[in-house]
């Protein structure tokens, strides 16, 4: 299939999911308001925990509120990457569209990528809402941000997370539900990835573990770019690490996914719930 054809199909998936989401406008409004509550919670938590000792561990020029807000908003990219692919399979199984999709002229890998298009765009908007509420009401002003650097870190992070997401989907098509790999990755990443506190506060073994997972580099790079206004020299380490994760995880995940798909076609369980 040509890249134009693939792109057209991914757009068709996006339009499908956008049309479905439009049917639930109330939910969109409530999610936007819910984000305000989340940001407000971080703000008041930060007023409680901020101390000179803590500030020493944060990127230069930032405070705990900005640190936690960026951590919380961008950790979601890992969550969405891990759930978008297997959720798309699960939903298609549940609403019984999977079989209809599988007999079309669209390979399953394009079905997977297409199904993830809307969740990532929606997440980008949600991130803007989070940062927007922070800026509007709670003094979050990334005035020194390196926006281009932040975008590159985000793109590299998504690539690194995609591999994990496709591995998660492989588990989903093989074993249907209760994806422990997803929860292990999310659990470890939440614990040691630096979402709510700097990696520096962790004991040495956990710090080592932190450097073996992509979300650490994603959050480190994003905070450096957004809060510290870091230049390319300071960002290259995070970028390189994320691209290396992507270079290993994406081919590996497609290999595993191909194997899983083949096995389910042999066992006849691909569309089973």
């Amino acid at each position: 299939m040509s890249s134009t054809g693939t792109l057209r199909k991914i757009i068709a998936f996006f339009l499908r999911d956008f049309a479905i989401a439009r049917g639930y406008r109330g939910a969109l409004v409530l999610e936007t308001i819910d984000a305000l509550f989340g940001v407000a919670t971080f703000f008041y938590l930060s007023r409680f925990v901020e101390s000179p000792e803590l500030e020493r561990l944060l990127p230069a020029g930032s405070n705990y509120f900005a640190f936690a807000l960026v951590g919380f908003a961008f950790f979601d990219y890992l969550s969405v990457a891990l759930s978008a692919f297997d959720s798309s399979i699960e939903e298609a199984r549940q609403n019984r569209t999977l079989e209809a999709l599988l007999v079309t002229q669209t390979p399953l890998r394009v079905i997977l990528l297409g199904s993830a298009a809307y969740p990532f765009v929606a997440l980008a908007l949600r991130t803007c809402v989070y940062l927007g509420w922070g800026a509007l009401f709670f003094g979050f002003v990334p005035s020194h941000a390196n926006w281009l650097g932040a975008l590159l870190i985000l793109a590299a992070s998504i690539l690194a997370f995609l591999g994990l997401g496709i591995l998660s989907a492989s588990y989903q098509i093989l074993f249907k539900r209760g994806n422990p790999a997803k929860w292990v990755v999310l659990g470890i990443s939440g614990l040691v990835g630096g979402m709510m506190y700097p990696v520096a506060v962790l004991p040495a073994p956990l710090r080592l573990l932190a450097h073996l997972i992509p979300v650490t580099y994603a959050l480190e790079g994003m905070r450096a770019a957004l809060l510290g206004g870091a230049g390319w020299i300071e960002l290259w380490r995070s970028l390189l690490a994320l691209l290396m994760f992507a270079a290993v995880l994406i081919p590996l995940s497609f290999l595993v996914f191909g194997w899983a798909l083949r096995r389910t076609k042999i066992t006849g369980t691909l569309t089973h719930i």
Partner: protein
Amino acid sequence: MRIEAGFAQASSVITARMCASSPAIVVENLQKYFPPAYSGWRAFAQPVAKATECALAGISFQVEAGEAVAIVGHNGAGKTTLLRTLATLIFPTRGRALLGGFDVAHEAAGARRQLGYHTGGDEGFYARLTGRQNLTFFAAMNNLTGREAHERIAAVTEWMGIPGEIDRQVRTLSTGMTHRLGLARALLHGPAVLLLDEPTRSLDPLAAADFRRLLKDELVRRRGTTLLFASHTLSEVEAVADRVLVLDHGKSAAYDSPTRIRVSTGARTFEEAIARLTRSSAAMESIG
């Protein structure tokens, strides 16, 4: 005119494929074994479990282009497994199946270009979207976009008798309408071969009769589409099928026209013939 033009285009594609003298479907010694279904911790071994349960035990048959063939047999005889194998949804264990000249296991993309697949219980649509939005999406999945998709959707919905319903959300459609929408989806890309699994299962008797006329007169006779369908309704099989493949415990018990099957078994009715061939006096689930 536009509708006719849309179908003329689809039909010309079909005709071009059918000009080749090769059969539309070739199945040679097709075998399918499934592993037993595990639960609990053993379910983790399911993907590599040894396939021991026989669903198809070496089926061979051919379907000529433009022919209507029915598959009959008791529950568990292998009808759905055969159709799902041809639809590229599962791999055969041994043997091979060609659809429009493409091996369904090794050239699945080519085979999918040739086929439309629809099951009688098919309600697999996005309920909050309209019929048109659903069809537009599935048209895109079959490489139809823009004006071509628009014209094809207009053509198939007109043909299915649902042009007035297509702009309603699918969740508001009746079972019969949803069923027609499903068939419209299967026909969108003008497939040369149509695979149907119990196509009238969820239709009332009048709608089912309409549907049979549509299959036989329009699809097979007029458009030249090759039809392979599974059914428990023997009157439907007699009315629509040129030939019947009788399956019994994964084996082919007969493959001939309904009349010849009745004569060769010495039975008074087709129903009796099928009962004899499947070694059971139990009637089929429904005899229409």
